[in-house]
Structure formats: structure tokens, C-alpha cells
């Protein structure tokens, strides 16, 4: 076992050399994998992507302005209606019905008790061979949560401040999520106003437990809930004018 000193030294050097070679090999492998998905490579391979991203940001900016203008114009319409209330009994009655319809349809800001649900992408490391999209919040997760809330008696729901109304869709483009007209990013905060026990009913509802509830458990999606005594949800801001549907008078 104990050979000459030069032989022991050679063996030790060989051991180090093997260790370093292995380390460098792993470094090379990981480095190559990193290069394949690195920002540097993206910039190198797709300057068109930057142009497209710029267009998305510009459209989002335009949308914020349009929504702001719509909110201001709607407020002005309501001011006209409120001013006219004092001038005629018929108008006053009409405006009362109008306020009730706005409240029922999600076109008025509301406050009340309810539940807050937050969901975000999993923080777990994606194991090799697993689909990374399993570990992020998908549009189906949000749909299931909203369905469970409505089924549990919610009267008003928002996702990241977007009020859901009769025309609202929750739409996925790849991993991106659009609600109404807005492009939303995680974490997603869903707020709902509803009768007492809303959160308990939600957590037991099949629409929640059936799919998103299992994904939270299996893939570790970040998830938190809280009951609240007082939530304030904004009114829907967007187009409420029909192009194709024409109201029919009940009597007609």
C-alpha cells in the first residue's frame, strides 16, 4: 500500500485532475444549457422579438389611456344623469332604476364582506422531464377559481382589479392571461364580495377542488386565502355598447 513518495504524489495529482476534469465537464454542460436559453442568445437570435415586445407595450399604454378616457366620459354621463334627477320626477325614477341596473351588472364600484384569494406560480424547481407549464398559474386555474366563487354565491368578483361582467372572458395566450381587455401577470389576486361563509363554501366547491385544487397540491402553486369584512371592488371599465344585440322591450 505504501509505495514511494513520487508514486503517491502522482496518484494524488491524478485524483485532482479527474475531479477538475469532471467539474469542468459539468460546467461545460450546464453552460451550454444556459446558453441555449440565455437572454444573450435571445437578443442575438431575435431582434424581431424586441420589436414585437415594444408593440405590446405600446398597445398596453394605448389601452390604459382609452380606459381612462372611458372612465372619465362615463363619470360625466352619470353627472348629467344625477343633475337631471332634481329637475323631474320621471327622470329621478328613471335614474334610480339606472343606478340599480349599474349595480346589478357590475358597472358600479361596490363594497362589502367577502374573500381574497391569491395564486402564483410554483417556487419549486421543475424536475427533469416535467412540463414547466405545470408549475405556473394557467388560465384554467383562474377560470376554475372564478367559477367556484360564483357557484358559492359571490356577487362581485375582480381579478387583479379587473371587474368581471357579462361580457368578461378569461383568456390565455400561451402563458399570458388576458381578463377583459387587460394583460395580467402573476401573482393573481381574486377578490369577491358575497354573503357570510363565502370562503368556506369556495374551498369546498367542486369547481375549486376538482382541478386547480389538485394542481396547487401537486405542483406547489403558491396559494393563500383570507376572509375579509370589507372589500372595495372597482366598477368595470370598458365597452358596454352592443354592436349586434338590440334590446327588446319587455312589452314588445
Amino acid at each position: 500500500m505504501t509505495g514511494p513518495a513520487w508514486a503517491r504524489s502522482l496518484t494524488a495529482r491524478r485524483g485532482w485532475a479527474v475531479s477538475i476534469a469532471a467539474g469542468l465537464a459539468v460546467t461545460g454542460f450546464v453552460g451550454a444549457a444556459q446558453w441555449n436559453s440565455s437572454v444573450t442568445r435571445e437578443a442575438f437570435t431575435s431582434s424581431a422579438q424586441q420589436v414585437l415586445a415594444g408593440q405590446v407595450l405600446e398597445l398596453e399604454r394605448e389601452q390604459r389611456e382609452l380606459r381612462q378616457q372611458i372612465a372619465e366620459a362615463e363619470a360625466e354621463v352619470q353627472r348629467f344623469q344625477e343633475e337631471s334627477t332634481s329637475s323631474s320626477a320621471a327622470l329621478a325614477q328613471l335614474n334610480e332604476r339606472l343606478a340599480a341596473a349599474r349595480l346589478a351588472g357590475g358597472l358600479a364600484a361596490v363594497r362589502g364582506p367577502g374573500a381574497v384569494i391569491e395564486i402564483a406560480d410554483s417556487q419549486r424547481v421543475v424536475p427533469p422531464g416535467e412540463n414547466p407549464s405545470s408549475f405556473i398559474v394557467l388560465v384554467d386555474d383562474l377560470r376554475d377559481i372564478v367559477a367556484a366563487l360564483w357557484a358559492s354565491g359571490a356577487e362581485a368578483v375582480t381579478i387583479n382589479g379587473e371587474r368581471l361582467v357579462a361580457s368578461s372572458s378569461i383568456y390565455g395566450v400561451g402563458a399570458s392571461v388576458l381578463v377583459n381587455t387587460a394583460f395580467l401577470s402573476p401573482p393573481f389576486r381574486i377578490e369577491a364580495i358575497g354573503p357570510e361563509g363565502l370562503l368556506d363554501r369556495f374551498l369546498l366547491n367542486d369547481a375549486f377542488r376538482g382541478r386547480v385544487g389538485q394542481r396547487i397540491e401537486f405542483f406547489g402553486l403558491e396559494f393563500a386565502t383570507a376572509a375579509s369584512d370589507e372589500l372595495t371592488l372597482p366598477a368595470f371599465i370598458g365597452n358596454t355598447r352592443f354592436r349586434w344585440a338590440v334590446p327588446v322591450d319587455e312589452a314588445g
Partner: protein
Amino acid sequence: MGTRLAQASLFGVALLIGLLLVGQLRSQARPTEISSLPAQELSQLIETLSNRNRELRIGLADIREQLREYRAAGSQGQSALDVTREDLRRITAFAAMAPVQGQGIILEVDGRLDAIALNDLINELRNAGAEAMAVDSIRITHRSVATQGPIALVIDGVDVGERFTVTAIGSPEGLLATMERPGGIISQLEQFINATIVARQSEQITLPATGLSLAPAVAQPVE
């Protein structure tokens, strides 16, 4: 001396591996910056956002027209009454509290759709631009959701059988194209749920008002 150098080298290599691994793991997460989204996804986003912005511009023009009518009418008299009455008709129709009619599409569904599938179908129609919808004679409101009842699917407290009709008012061509596109909702449902869905355009659809009261019981208006 040589051993220390080798240890330092190994430490450096290990550190580098660690840093690269962190970078690699980060790159697997959802892109948080728009610029890091795939080009195809960005193109789809541009198309969708452009369409939504066009709708918003049309809506804004309509509100401004209404404001012009109010200004012309003054704050009292028959004209102001007419403008407000028209606004009430519009908002009750939007909220599904009044019947509506117009062009659109009719989907005849035959098969055991589950609640998720029916909710997805309704969501897809909304996304395609449907302005008003009904499942059989149940007008869909923002609070309507299909759930699995003891015997059948239930929407707003009403049972929905295995064969039912979904009716939607909107651009007939646009709605039909979205529903029938390859890989779209109809082909997905037919493939995975063994359902048959026949879609057709219709020139004249009339949808009833919701049978439910949408007046909130606990939500109060913010003054």
C-alpha cells in the same frame, strides 16, 4: 501550495456551476418581462390587444355621442328623459336583465359535457365577441356558471340535459370562425368529451332576460 491551488480551483468551478444552475433554473420560470415572451405569443398578444383596443375606441366614441346628446338636451325636458331611458335599455340589456335580439350563432350540443367543458364553451364565446348568450332558455349573466347537479348540469338553478342549445348574439362569421377553427373549442370538446356540436349562423336570435334577480344582497354601492 499545489493542493491549495487545486482547492481554490475546485471552489471556483463549484461556484461557477452554482451560478449557472441558478441562471438555468430561473430561465425555466414564467417569463416576467414581456420582451422575454416567445415571438409567437407576442404576435398573438398584439392581435388580441389590437382588437380589444379597437372595441374600446368604438365604445368611447359611443359614450361621447351620448354626452353630446345630453348636452344638446340640457338637464331637463323630454330629450334628457329619452337619452336616460335609452341608457337604461342599454345597461339592462348588457347586464342580461332585458331580452335582446340580433344575428349570431346557434350551437346544438349532444353529449355528456361536464361543467368545466360547458363553462369553457361559454368563456370561448365571450372571448370571440358574443354580446349575449343563453343555454336553452337560460340567459347567461356574469354570475352564471355551470355546476354538476345530482342528475344533470345546472345553470342558475335550472337543469341542462345531455342535448341542449347554446345561442350567442354577435358577429355570425366571427363567432363561427372562432368556434370551428382547427384545434378550437369544438374540436377539443368533440375529441376529448365525445360530444357532437353542430354550429350554424342565424339571422334572427331572440334571447330572454335572466330569470334571476341580480340585485346584490350584501354588496353595497360605493358612494
